[in-house]
């Protein structure tokens, strides 16, 4: 059994996270709580560490159904991008699947990609 398949998604009313082994994470809803790091930061870190333990070469994070996040939540994606950027070739490719019609995704992930270099890939539909 893979580490990633054992991730337990957080229980939030307006946000859903689904894990599909071996390497797909799908997020939906909105993140507007004041301090999302408390609820979601640990989960993102667990996913990152599980991906490393499973030795995946690429992790796909599908945010197309995540329609709104506040700036505190954007910071969680910035953190995640920095984790893989620091690892470089020893890590995995973090591929965000985005919807370019959703403004926050179009603007934020373009900057994240520039910060994360070759460790970050974007699929925008």
């Amino acid at each position, binding site marked *: 059994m893979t580490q990633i398949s054992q991730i337990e998604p957080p229980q939030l009313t*307006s946000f859903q996270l689904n894990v599909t082994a071996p390497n797909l994470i799908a997020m939906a809803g*909105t993140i*507007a*709580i*004041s301090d999302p790091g408390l609820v979601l930061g640990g989960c993102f870190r667990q996913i990152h560490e599980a991906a490393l333990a499973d030795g995946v070469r690429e992790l796909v994070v599908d945010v197309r159904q995540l329609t*709104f996040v*506040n*700036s*505190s939540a*954007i*910071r969680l994606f*910035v*953190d995640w991008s*920095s984790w893989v950027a620091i690892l470089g070739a020893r890590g995995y490719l973090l591929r965000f699947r985005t919807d370019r019609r*959703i*403004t*926050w995704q179009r*603007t*934020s992930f373009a*900057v*994240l990609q*520039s*910060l994360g270099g070759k460790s970050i890939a974007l699929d925008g539909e």
Partner: protein
Amino acid sequence: MNVSKVDAILSRVQAASGVVPALGGALVRVSWDASPNLEPFLAFVTAYARSRFSLTLAERVTLASAELLDNAVRYGSLAREFSYELASEGGQLSVIVQNCTVQARIDMLTAHLRRLDAGPDQVYASELERSLAPSGGRRSMLGLARIRHEAEMRIELTADVHSVKVRAYCSR
């Protein structure tokens, strides 16, 4: 979402947080004397905006409302007095948040808005990069940068000795 559903949500939000039905140019006007629970209120604002404006405009209103209120709650003074207004007047749509604060905070906001006006794109990118720093103290600046760059709304600030009013606005 249809208007009756929005009205039903409004009733629940009124009961929970004291929303006052708005008059004049204001579409929604709310005040709190304690730290508000933002999540249900923002759900209401989102539903309300979607029922009355285009999807793009509703998205901009949601973003400005979320970031301005989050800043007010996070960085307002202990007096904990907040007000929120969504207003439509003279072809402009405005999100206005007022809270008590200290002069140093007002000075910092004024300087940041000057930077934002000079180059919203660059400030947005640099604030996102800065948010990598361990201290989260600059998150409010990322919020304002998002309003200016992402929502493409202008921001103005008026202040007196003890309170600050931040208005994000755009054409309808």
